């Protein structure tokens, strides 16, 4: 099989499209690159879903934590504490064993039939845990930014007669985003790195449609040689990191477009590990 044929056969293997049988003998570099890249689709899926949904929840949580009302603030604080204070690994296990306990056949609620079996598959369950987790981390970042919105900006807004929703939409939220964006970029990068944990989370890979690490592990197991497949995963993730920095950098540029060029906040990649 030439490399082009391999790519045609396996490029979307992780979605169940193309050749079904994984290679069993005569492994070559092209197969490893193609299959691990195909698995990366799942990592990107988890990252994008969790980030885009998490962004909304995080904004709400940050607002709730900054609110003066106790019944709003306390739940948000607890949510953030629980998800930031415990390992993502444990959260995955906990969620999986909780979701498995739901009745297989589904729940009948007021005559409505709610199917539950899909929740235990990785595409829903793992994405849900990642969504909650990134919401907590991002909420803490947004809360910090919300607290450092300049006092003068808010007073000026009130002097112009902006209150409530208008003040939030036009002044608080854009400034919060601008201040939080460098830290949020890092959060996004490490969320994508955290998607590799899904492989260990207990959520099973359906019909060998796994993520990047699933295929890397497959090759490492078959060839007894970790020196090829894991560096390929690393290579893909470095590419992913660079493209994320580029995309988030463009957004950062837009958020800062009204500022003189020497006062703009730059995005710096800051190290952080597994959560």
């Amino acid at each position, binding site marked *: 099989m030439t490399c082009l044929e391999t790519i045609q056969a396996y490029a979307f293997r992780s979605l169940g499209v193309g050749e079904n049988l994984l290679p069993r003998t005569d492994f070559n570099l092209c197969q490893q690159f193609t299959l691990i890249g195909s698995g990366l689709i799942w990592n990107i899926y988890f990252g994008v879903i969790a980030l885009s949904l998490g962004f909304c929840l995080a904004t709400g949580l940050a607002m709730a934590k900054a609110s003066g009302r106790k019944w709003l603030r306390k739940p948000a604080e607890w949510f953030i504490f629980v998800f930031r*204070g415990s390992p993502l690994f444990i*959260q995955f296990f906990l969620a999986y*064993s909780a979701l498995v306990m739901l009745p297989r056949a589904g729940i009948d609620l007021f005559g409505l039939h709610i199917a539950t079996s899909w929740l235990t598959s990785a595409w829903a369950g793992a994405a849900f845990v990642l969504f909650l987790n990134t919401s907590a981390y991002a909420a803490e970042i947004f809360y910090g930014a919300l607290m450092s919105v300049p006092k003068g900006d808010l007073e000026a807004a009130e002097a112009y007669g902006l209150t409530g929703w208008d003040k939030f939409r036009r002044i608080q939220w854009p400034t919060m985003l601008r201040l939080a964006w460098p830290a949020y970029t890092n959060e996004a990068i490490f969320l994508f790195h955290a998607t590799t944990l899904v492989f260990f989370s207990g959520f099973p890979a359906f019909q060998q449609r796994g993520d990047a690490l699933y295929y890397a592990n497959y090759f490492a197991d078959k060839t007894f040689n970790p020196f090829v497949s894991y560096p390929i995963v690393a290579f893909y993730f470095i590419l992913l990191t660079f493209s994320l920095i580029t995309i988030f950098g463009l957004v950062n540029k837009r958020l800062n477009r009204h500022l003189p060029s020497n006062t703009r906040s730059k995005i710096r990649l800051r190290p952080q*590990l597994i959560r």
Partner: protein
Amino acid sequence: MFSFCADPKSLEGFSWLFCYLTSGKHIDFYWSFLTVLILLAVTAPSALLFGFGGAMAARSHVAPLRWFGKTYTSMVRGVPDIVFFMFFVIALDQGIEWMKHQIVCPDWKEPIRQGLEFRVCPQAKVPLGTSSQIWHQLYGFALAVFTFALVFGAFAANVLYGAMNAVPKAQLETAESYGMSHGQVFRRILVPQMWTYALPGLSNLWMILIKATPLLFLLGVKDIVYWARELGSAKTQAYAYPHPDWRLWYFLFLLVAYLCMTRISEILLNRLSARLNHGQATAAGEAMRRAAQ
């Protein structure tokens, strides 16, 4: 463990639960918490040591040493650490065996990589195939600690490098004008003064280290996650204590345990930071001075 637990089938209610929670396997489970604490106690100082070395290397005037330090600090960034963990432990394991192989059996003819397998001579196995189970476990644990220390050392090096640069230049220049040598300035001024700048980064790192300890499970050490899965899974009547799938409760227990650990460290680190900021020429130190007035 207790005499009235001799026949678990006859027990009911609280005494059943008590006997269940003090069964031999549960004692192993509680001991595995000690494994995690030992890992933390060993890894944190060694990671700090690695980080200190890395930061010093990155600041060095000797170019190759500086490149080494910079490479080390940027090594683990950009790559998911989990890939690093999985890859590095196997690589280290094979590397040690390969080196021992070269020394112990130099006239071994067969290739080490036989197609799909990694084969060294039996004398070069680490630990030896004949040694007892405890050595295998200890060796696995040592490999895990080394990997943790290396990865977290890179992050600590990054933090300490920044902290060393953050110490006000005026303080160092004052020390020099008093006639202190380079080494004396480093020992007497730079190192004692840098901690207040390093603490936020280091405490963040400590939190991350706590949350990274379940990864021991991936490295094959029988840690709390291993035991929680083992004990929680459904037990049939063949076992002394039959029960349905209780993994949810075990993981909930682990979650709470981790939350306690992070919360306690948070409180302690806040106290430490208050101590370190005392009298410093920083915003935090100034705020403390104002509050005391």
